[in-house]
């Protein structure tokens, strides 16, 4: 064994952890190498000092109790705040989470805040008593004098003329585009969706709503589900997607019957102004109470009065005219689950409640293609 090898095993030799053979080889070298001998002697002294047990002061007698108490306190704190015991890590992460959540909240407010605020204003107006609604509608009408001045004479001219227009095949497309706005408008009014245009009672709100509509149009949201299993005789006439809901209008080719299906994602993005419950819930048309009486009395939409004109804004004159021969509008609201998501379905049609109920029972949801 040479000096380099002795140096390699120096401390193991001093600590006496070498095997006898290695130990003998080192001792043989040390006999003839005074330099290595000296280094080994010094290292042996160092090892002996290192092995000497330092004076370690004793811990206090109550040390164990203090540890147990601290553990108990930590456990109580953890239980009371349902925080995992790694409090330091948790604090660190909770701080990060709070800051992230705050950033997210600010972003959300920046993106959707204006729309929500405006929308809540709309809902408030929509929730007002009919008299104020009426006033609102009147003011809209006044603001849209051109349109109303065109519509009012049409109403005044009587429903027969409108009927003829509706029956005209050339105007079918126009009918398809306009028709959803009337019955669907009632449903939408109930759920406070964007289509509550009756709240455009002043310019600022009108601008806000237009802005909101523009936003909706600019960022169209593909609604995840669509209704299926409707009777084969019904064909899709129109579909309107809004934030969090989708409204389908189905019609029969040989009939004037229409079914409006509104599917809203739950939880609703906007407050519901009418109550609904799980399961089937059938109600008669609520908003156009005057309509019902008119229908029952067979008056139709013939009055050119302001009040009538107000109703006309929600229900197009053509629809009002058509409804003469149809039963009262019935609405069914119920919840359906699809892909672990809940949706509120509102089916509205001028059909007998039993028939509407049959249709709704067969109705299913499928993913939008």
């Amino acid at each position, binding site marked *: 064994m040479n000096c380099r090898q002795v140096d*390699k095993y*120096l*401390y*193991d030799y001093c*600590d006496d*952890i070498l095997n006898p053979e290695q130990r003998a080889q080192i001792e043989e070298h040390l006999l003839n190498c005074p330099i290595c001998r*000296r280094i080994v*002697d*010094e*290292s*042996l*002294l*160092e*090892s002996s*000092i*290192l*092995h*000497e*047990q*330092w*004076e*370690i*002061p004793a*811990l*206090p007698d109550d*040390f*164990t109790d*203090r*540890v*147990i108490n*601290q*553990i*108990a306190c*930590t456990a109580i704190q953890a239980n009371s705040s349902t925080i995992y*015991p*790694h409090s330091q890590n948790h604090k660190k992460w909770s701080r990060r989470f709070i800051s992230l959540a705050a950033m997210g909240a600010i972003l959300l407010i920046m993106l959707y805040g204006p729309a929500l605020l405006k929308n809540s204003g709309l809902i408030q107006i929509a929730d007002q008593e009919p008299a104020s609604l009426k006033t609102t509608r009147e003011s809209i009408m006044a603001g849209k004098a051109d349109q109303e001045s065109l519509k009012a004479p049409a109403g005044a001219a009587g429903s027969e003329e409108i009927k003829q227009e509706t029956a005209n095949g050339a105007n079918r497309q126009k009918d398809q585009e306009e028709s959803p706005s009337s019955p669907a408008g009632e449903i939408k009014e109930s759920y406070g969706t964007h289509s509550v245009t009756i709240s455009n009672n002043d310019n600022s709100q009108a601008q806000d709503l237009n802005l909101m509509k523009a936003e909706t149009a600019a960022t169209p949201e593909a609604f995840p589900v669509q209704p299926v299993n409707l009777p084969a005789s019904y064909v899709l006439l129109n579909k309107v997607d809004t934030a969090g809901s989708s409204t389908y209008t189905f019609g029969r080719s040989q009939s004037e019957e229409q079914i409006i299906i509104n599917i809203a994602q739950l939880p609703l993005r906007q407050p519901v102004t009418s109550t609904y419950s799980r399961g089937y819930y059938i109600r008669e048309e609520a908003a156009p109470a005057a309509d019902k009486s008119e229908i029952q009395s067979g008056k139709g939409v013939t009055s050119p009065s302001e009040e009538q004109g107000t109703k006309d804004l929600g229900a197009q004159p053509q629809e009002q005219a058509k409804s003469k021969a149809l039963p009262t509008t019935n609405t069914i609201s119920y919840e359906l689950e699809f892909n672990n998501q809940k949706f509120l379905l509102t089916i509205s049609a001028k059909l007998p409640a039993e028939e509407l109920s049959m249709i709704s029972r067969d109705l299913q949801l499928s993913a939008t293609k």
Partner: protein
Amino acid sequence: MISDESLAFQSLGGDISAFEELVNRYKKPVFSIVYRMIGHYQEAEDITQDVFVNVYQKLYQFDSNKKFAPWIYRIATNASISALRKKKKIVTLDFDEAYGKAYEDYYTAHSGDPQLMFEREELKHFIYEAINELPESYRAVVILRYQMDLNNQEIAEVLGVSKENIEVKVHRARKALRKIVEKRWNERGLEYELPASR
């Protein structure tokens, strides 16, 4: 006698008296590691207390197929290293009490040459100081090897490295220690010649 590992298992099940027994068994060795690493009684006591709380909270991580001692020593060593790194300064052990006591013990036990004994004790003082100047990982290896009497394999388990790595570290730590002691010795105007070599 119930094994440490069984006590750990019982503690994990909510048996606080089992953990109390573990504290009683390990408070001295754990405090020894921490005190030797840190050098301040109060600070070492606080860290030791934290070590046991930490051990209790991490019991679910303990592999009951392995020995409990290396696991708790590992937590104690890491806690000490963390504390030292946080302070970012060299802590000087208050050796006075320990040094004086050891000297008296040695003097009464060995009625040899007083000069030789004095030099030996001076060297001891240098060595203790030098240990505190070592990097934390070297310090931990030296303490576990010489004060806790763990072999290289056990140290490897405590520090979570290979046995070969520990062998290299022990060698390097001893070399570094000698270098520091030699420097101190030379600063006193003495040629580095240990009492043993005379």
